[in-house]
């Protein structure tokens, strides 16, 4: 599906882009998932600030954002676990609030935290959730065998779930979401804590499900994983979708190489072509010719103050930097701290 990239507004100095695909009418856009104007706050903390997003049948959309961006809140609301303060969620044309039971039949959710019953076997876990999903006995047994083969957990079926390794638990956790071939698959940080082999199994299975027609919303904060998945991307930052499109399109539209110089102390006065930004002790120079920029800039640096030089190549990290003015890893660390505060806020509000 082609996504038109439009620069639609400026806010706080950031350039925001949103997809031009889809309409506001139910079903007409062909979207399996349609989120419109979604807002959610936990007390004074705004987790989602007007999110618009669509995922079509057979499409994989990686929901990318640093810790605290609002990914889990968004996924939780779509799955019916949280109520939005405002906005609309539609799954297969059904209003998720008014027809929640019908919507839940169409959704497969693998939450961020591993959720399996440790005191019973893997097979018992799959049977329980498969029955709750509405599968008949014969079909459920067949699906368990299929999913077990796809995720390489066949030998684990009769083992007690609590005695599995972390990666094995993660595969069982993901398997539960896939049993009933959901029309919309929600994977929230599916590969967090998973080993390389597990990660490979899960990503391959995600591609397979999309090929079979499922819509997949794949939440992650791993940039490399998104690039490896080759999916469409929606970048979430501070509760808003700031970019939406294919990885290649986003990089082409927003990312140029960036030369970053870090200094001991304040950034010295340096003459350069436009676009330079300073953040703390770092000077960032977007440029299509990093070598030429280095030749131009480095001689101007006083001796003894330069601590490092880095060239950030065009990738999703550069896209994020271009859109937000912040390094992704810095935002991730900052977001982890804010997320801890957000969880505390939820428990306070819940009281």
């Amino acid at each position, binding site marked *: 599906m082609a996504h038109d990239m439009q620069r639609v507004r400026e806010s706080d100095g950031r350039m925001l882009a949103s997809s031009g695909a889809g309409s506001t009418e139910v079903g007409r856009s062909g979207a399996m998932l349609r989120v419109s104007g979604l807002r959610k706050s936990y007390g004074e903390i705004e987790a989602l600030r007007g999110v618009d997003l669509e995922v079509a049948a057979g499409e994989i959309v990686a929901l990318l954002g640093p810790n605290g961006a609002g990914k889990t809140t968004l996924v*939780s609301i779509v*799955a*019916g*676990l*949280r*109520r939005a303060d405002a906005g609309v969620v539609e799954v297969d044309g059904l209003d998720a609030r008014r027809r929640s*039971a019908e919507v*839940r*039949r169409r*959704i497969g*959710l693998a*939450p961020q*935290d*591993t*959720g*399996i*019953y*440790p*005191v019973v076997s893997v097979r018992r876990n799959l049977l329980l*959730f498969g029955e*709750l*999903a*509405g599968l008949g006995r014969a079909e459920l047994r067949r699906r368990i065998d299929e999913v077990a083969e796809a995720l390489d957990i066949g030998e684990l079926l009769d083992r007690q779930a609590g005695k599995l390794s972390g990666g094995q638990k993660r595969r069982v956790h993901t398997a*539960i979401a896939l049993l009933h071939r959901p029309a919309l698959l929600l994977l929230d940080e599916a590969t967090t804590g998973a080993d390389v082999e597990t990660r490979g199994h899960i990503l391959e299975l995600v591609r397979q499900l999309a090929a079979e027609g499922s819509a997949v919303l794949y939440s992650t904060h791993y940039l490399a994983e998104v690039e490896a998945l080759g999916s469409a991307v929606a970048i979430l930052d501070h509760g808003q979708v700031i970019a939406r499109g294919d990885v290649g399109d986003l990089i082409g539209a927003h990312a140029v190489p960036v030369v970053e110089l870090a200094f001991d102390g304040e950034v010295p006065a340096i003459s350069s072509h436009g676009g330079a930004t300073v953040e703390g002790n770092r000077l960032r120079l977007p440029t299509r010719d990093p070598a030429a920029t280095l030749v131009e800039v480095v001689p101007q640096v006083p001796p003894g103050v330069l601590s490092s030089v880095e060239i950030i190549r065009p990738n999703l990290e550069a896209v994020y930097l271009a859109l937000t003015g912040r390094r992704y890893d810095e935002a991730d660390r900052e977001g982890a701290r804010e997320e801890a505060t957000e*969880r505390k806020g*939820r*428990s306070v509000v*819940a*009281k």
Partner: protein
Amino acid sequence: MWSDPSTVIFVIVMPLIMVALMKELFATALRAEGFQGVNGSEFAVPAMAVGFAAFGVGYSGFTFFRDHGWGTWDRLRATPASSADILIGKVVPNVAVTFVQLALLFLLGGPLFGLEVRGSWLALTLLVAVVALSLCAFGMLVTAVTRTMNQLNAIGSVGGMAMAMLGGAWVPVATMPGWAQAIAPALPTYWAMQGFRGVILESKGVPQVVVPVLVMAGFGLLYTVIAAARFRFEDTKVYFG
């Protein structure tokens, strides 16, 4: 429960041990009230049954907290199962377990301690059923208002123990101070003990236990209404285990 025998020990074995230890003490008290041909089990068995059932009201909440701790609560909520399905699926087994616990103690009371039920076994069964329902409803209320396992254990255990004590499950109400006797009827455990006393010692049948049955059912309904009003599926519950 099947994977953890400590629960069975707590709900069945411990009450039986307590009956064995305390029935002579209660025999003296019953004879002082004028009852003849008693051995103390007539008070001890229902007392320990009600007391331990009340003390364990937190167990019904434990299953909710455990789901939160295992990460399976959100999984359950994301399935097509309705909220009512989930609640019923969690509460009904607890009611059944409490009923079986109480019934077993009464059934074992005869062969082990010479308990003789002078009244109607149907009335006894009815009382056992409504005691299980009302105490589990109280357990749901405690679950609804608590956020952490520590709170659940504290309020559930202390609340259950207070119910048992003040309701006359540890000592006969007639032997308690005046202020405690005034409070006792405000508790379902009081009506449970009154009902069991009537059936076991006073040969009462179903018509004569209608009042305690209805009162306990009323308590159960009240606790259920409050729990339903207070329970939030979205609430986070903190589990350690």
